[in-house]
């Protein structure tokens, strides 16, 4: 560290640097947060198969208890952190040296600062609730123990991702959550669609992961290290081009993990996984890892304005893309998935706006974590009552049959559309406000996205809980058990109250040591005016939905003679078709060409070469005739060869 302290501070140009102090006191427990769920995963996945089913009986309880333990430790450390001064809120814990190779020394270091503190609370808090909910949801699944093992594995990996003190550790967590996501999407692997969705998610994520691994390699090549702390000190020394490339590579990584255009296609299919998985991984935590990556790498992005612009463009396209898809889906989970994509677009937009937006990106990430997990679990509760039917055209009028689910879902609904006072209102409004200050166009598009959000969420709400009964025969909706409704109630409360984090600009100031402090910019129109506009736009969206869905009868099968826009949205805006024609088909052609070259060229050389060598071998073999006399002759010849070689070289 001492060498770092010697670096002139003005070089960093106002961007906060990562400069943690060593962990002491209660912060020594930091490792425990990761270790608890990791232990759970180990017991449930590696030990249990040898226990002949003994662990199956209580494995789910263990799996649910350990994240709760992590949450309690996180909470303790959070209050410890609050007790410190703002500039003293970075703590690092060196566990061991992971590996050393040449000039690269990578430690297994944990970094605890305001950013990771908030993430810890989100991951372990929402994670614990979803674990508890899963006890009920997965009650009749014969592989429940394994499910909890995977969930614990996910939580452990996600915690590594947000706690690591260097990019390589982050990458370890990044791959770990990718693995867990793969395993959980394909958890019902007997369904072909689930297996295919898992594969798709894994492969699309590969593309993003290439970006991250290349980015880390470039960091090592440029800075000689992968530590956040060192890089944040010396980043300004790199050339603009390098920084821009780094930013773009990190953006590619974020696109893969956070399902941003053009790597968005996997998220809708990922809904094949059990609903708690969709809530935890594909709504609240993993898919926001891309936002975390960009906010964490602020010391790169602040110096790479072109990369930031790219982030804003990607984010704006995605927030509309996801919202439009959400309008046309009849599958309740896919509609929510489109909405997730869109909301992550808002977060990315915030992150792309730089210092002014980082804190709001994280704020929206947290509130979204609450209300989207709430709604996914609510959707799961509805499916639970509807015999696992996901088609909203078979729902309707459920508000009486499932009152708790309805009420909690409504809280999430009001939060996501940005109903004044609810958590989503505060966080989304702030992002739109900041975007407007940055660029008129982006701000207006973000506002348009808010209106569409109002439309599709109202449509979902109406089709599910209001309108007429369109139930399948033999379906008797009923309220879910309390092990499922209690987490819903907690999350609903958080959805309502999450906005309190903005009270007195608390979250902005809390995150300032990580994200920096923005100079106050006067928006082109007063903040209150922006808020009013957003509310009006959302109201228009809601009203449109009311007229198009609420006032008419919803047909039980989706009508086919619909406009082009609807057809496009139903087909995920042709995301798969685009992938197919831009990547898959040319890729297939390339592979076929390579196979042909391999067959003719490489195999030809190898096969003919081996034939030639065999021929030479057959000829040489004749010298091996078994007669000692000819062996002796060859020995004599060899002696001559050796002596002549010696003489020829030396006396020539």
């Amino acid at each position, binding site marked *: 560290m001492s060498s770092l302290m010697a670096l002139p501070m003005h070089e960093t140009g106002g961007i906060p640097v990562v400069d943690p102090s060593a962990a002491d006191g209660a912060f020594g427990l930091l490792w425990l947060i990761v270790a608890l769920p990791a232990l759970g995963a180990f017991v449930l996945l590696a030990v249990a198969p040898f226990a002949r089913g003994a662990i199956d009986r209580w494995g789910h309880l263990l799996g649910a208890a350990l994240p709760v333990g992590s949450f309690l430790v996180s909470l303790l450390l959070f209050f410890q952190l609050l007790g410190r001064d703002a500039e003293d809120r970075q703590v690092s814990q060196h566990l061991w040296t992971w590996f050393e190779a040449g000039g690269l020394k990578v430690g297994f270091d944990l970094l605890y600062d305001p950013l990771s503190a908030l993430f810890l609370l989100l991951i372990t808090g929402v994670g614990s609730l979803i674990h508890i909910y899963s006890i009920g949801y997965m009650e009749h699944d014969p592989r429940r123990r394994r499910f909890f093992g995977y969930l614990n594995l996910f939580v452990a990996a996600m915690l590594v991702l947000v706690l690591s003190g260097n990019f390589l550790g982050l990458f370890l967590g990044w791959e770990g959550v990718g693995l867990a996501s793969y395993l959980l999407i394909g958890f019902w692997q007997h369904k072909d669609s689930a297996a295919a969705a898992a594969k798709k998610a894994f492969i699309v994520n590969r593309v993003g992961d290439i970006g991250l691994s290349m980015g880390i390699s470039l960091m090592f090549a440029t800075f000689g290290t992968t530590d956040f702390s060192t890089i944040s000190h010396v980043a300004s020394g790199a050339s603009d081009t390098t920084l821009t490339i780094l930013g773009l590579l990190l953006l590619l990584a974020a696109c893969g993990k956070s399902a941003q255009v053009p790597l968005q296609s996997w998220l809708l299919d990922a809904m094949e996984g059990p609903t708690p998985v969709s809530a935890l991984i594909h709504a609240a935590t993993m898919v926001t890892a891309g936002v975390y990556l960009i906010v964490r790498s602020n010391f790169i992005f602040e110096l790479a304005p072109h990369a930031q612009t790219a982030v804003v463009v990607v984010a704006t396209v995605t927030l509309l893309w996801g919202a439009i898809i959400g309008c046309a889906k009849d599958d309740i989970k896919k509609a929510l998935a489109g909405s997730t994509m869109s909301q992550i677009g808002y977060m990315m937009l915030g992150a792309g706006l730089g210092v002014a937006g980082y804190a709001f990106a994280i704020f929206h990430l947290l509130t979204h974590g609450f209300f989207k997990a709430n709604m996914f679990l609510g959707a799961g509760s509805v499916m639970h009552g509807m015999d696992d039917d996901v088609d909203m055209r078979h729902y309707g009028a459920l508000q009486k049959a499932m009152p708790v689910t309805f009420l909690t879902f409504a809280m999430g609904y009001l939060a996501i559309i940005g109903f004044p006072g609810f958590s989503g209102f505060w966080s989304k409004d702030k992002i739109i406000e900041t975007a407007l200050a940055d660029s008129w166009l982006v701000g207006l598009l973000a506002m348009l996205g808010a209106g569409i959000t109002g439309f599709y969420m109202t449509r979902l709400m109406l089709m599910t809980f209001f309108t007429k009964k369109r139930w399948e025969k033999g379906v008797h909706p009923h309220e879910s058990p309390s092990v499922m409704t209690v987490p819903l109630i907690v999350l609903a409360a958080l959805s309502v109250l999450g906005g309190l984090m903005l009270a007195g600009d608390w979250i902005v100031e809390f995150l300032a040591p990580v994200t920096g402090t923005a100079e106050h910019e006067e928006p082109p129109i007063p903040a209150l005016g922006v808020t009013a506009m957003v509310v009006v736009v959302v109201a228009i969206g809601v009203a449109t939905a009311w007229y198009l869905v609420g006032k008419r009868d919803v047909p039980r099968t989706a009508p086919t003679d619909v406009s082009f826009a609807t057809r496009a949205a139903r087909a995920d805006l042709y995301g798969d078709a685009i992938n197919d024609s831009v990547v898959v088909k040319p890729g297939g052609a390339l592979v076929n060409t390579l196979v042909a070259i391999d067959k003719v060229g490489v195999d030809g050389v190898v096969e003919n070469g081996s034939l030639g060598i*065999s021929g030479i071998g057959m000829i040489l073999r004749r010298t091996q005739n078994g007669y000692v006399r000819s062996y*002796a002759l060859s*020995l004599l010849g060899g002696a001559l060869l*050796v*002596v002549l*070689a*010696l*003489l020829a070289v030396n006396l020539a």
Partner: protein
Amino acid sequence: MDDFVKPTLEYAELSPLFIVFGIACLGVLVEAFVPRKHRYLVQSTLAIGGVVLTLAAVIAVANRLKEHGDGAARGIVGSMGTVVVDGPAVFLWGLILLFGLAGCLLFAERQLEGGVSAFAGQAAALPGTEAERQAAGLDHTEVYPLLMFALMGMMLFPASGDLLTMFVALEVLSLPLYLLCGLARRRRLLSQEAALKYFVLGAFSSGFFLYGVALIYGYAGSMNLGAINDAVRNDASNQTLLLIGMGMLSVGLLFKVGAVPFQAWTPDVYQGAPTAVTAFMSAATKAAAFGAMMRLFYVAFGADRWSWQPMMWVIAILSMVVGAAILVTQRDVKRMLAYSAIAHTGFVLTGVLGLEGAGELTDGQLTSLQAVLFYLATYGIAALGAFAVVSLVRDSAGEASALSRWAGLGKHSPLVAGVFALFLLALAGIPLTSGFIGKWAVFEVAMSSGAWPVVIVGVLSSVVAAYFYVYVIVVMFFHDPEPEQAAYVVHPSVLTSSTIAVGAAATLVLGVIPGPVLNLAGVAGQFLR
């Protein structure tokens, strides 16, 4: 000669040699005085115990070696200059004794032949006669003392300080091996033919060696390697005499390691000899002979290395190319391993010719000696293990070494086939096996000495050879056997199975963490002059 000087012997440092020799002589006495039915137990216990004892002595000696020049070399020039106990010699002693221990265990195996050893009941009985049938239940327990004598010769060979000792060691190691080769219980005519061929050609090449000794004595006026080195440095006399003598000496040594064009005996002898003998011989003889070769060329002729390195280039390239090319045409597992041994001789020579002056090495760079010592360890372990596996695959007529009989082995004996595949991958030099690190080490030292043509040929012939090793794996795992043709695996006793298991483990471990052994070879330092 002036006054008579009473010879002094460093008993402590030379103790491993004495112990092996003593055990060998004791074995002869046992053969004479212990009743036949107890001999197997007594002899095998004596041999195994003796080798273990000697290993302990070697470790004791190694720990007490005197350092010279900050650890650049360590050891003593003992026995009036005739035996040099230095780091490389002690490393090779340890290696040879480990191979000797494995050899003892394989010799003592009696489960494969149904209660008798793999050696002829009575070597003097003519094949196919009544006398042979009567001797069917007997064992030749002389093989243990013979093995100990061979071990003694092998240990003396790389430690010899003058040419005469080197010649004596050469003969001491060779004669027991000639005998051992002719003692197979099955296919006795083939075995006896192999022994005779080995003997005749061996004697022929020893003649060359002795002639070379005479010429070098004529050049330098001394048998002592250090004195020869001085003469070479001072360019004392007729250069031609030196070169011809050098060539003659190398014929004797290259014959022992089976380099092309002195390889002709290798396939026939490897195939004809009892497999236990082949296993021991292939590993230990190579280690000893390469040790002696390096001592001769590094110590006596090291100052003149530019004159012999091109010759080594030629031999190394020939060995690798011819070994790999004929390897590809083989359809018998034992002959295949023999040609593999020839190709590997070429690879070791690639390391040997990588000699560089002390000043040319950068800090921490591998020395050629270190690389060759490591290679000898890795190759010896893999080859010994592979031959040991060959002894398990049998039919009613003994070992079934035709490759076609091995088809389908992977299906009915996956463990044996898997271990054999591991040894083959090590011989091919696939990463994560010891063979890869060994090849990398010798290529690295050859490259840094400027022998890039040899390295290129080495890499290409590795590719060719790898093709065939993989082909064998394919036959074992993916070919269906001809009906009634599949050989079966006989379950060995703990003697053979432990040898194979340790060999397989070492092959894996040296591939993943080669550091300790590479370091050990480095700590051994340079030859002492």
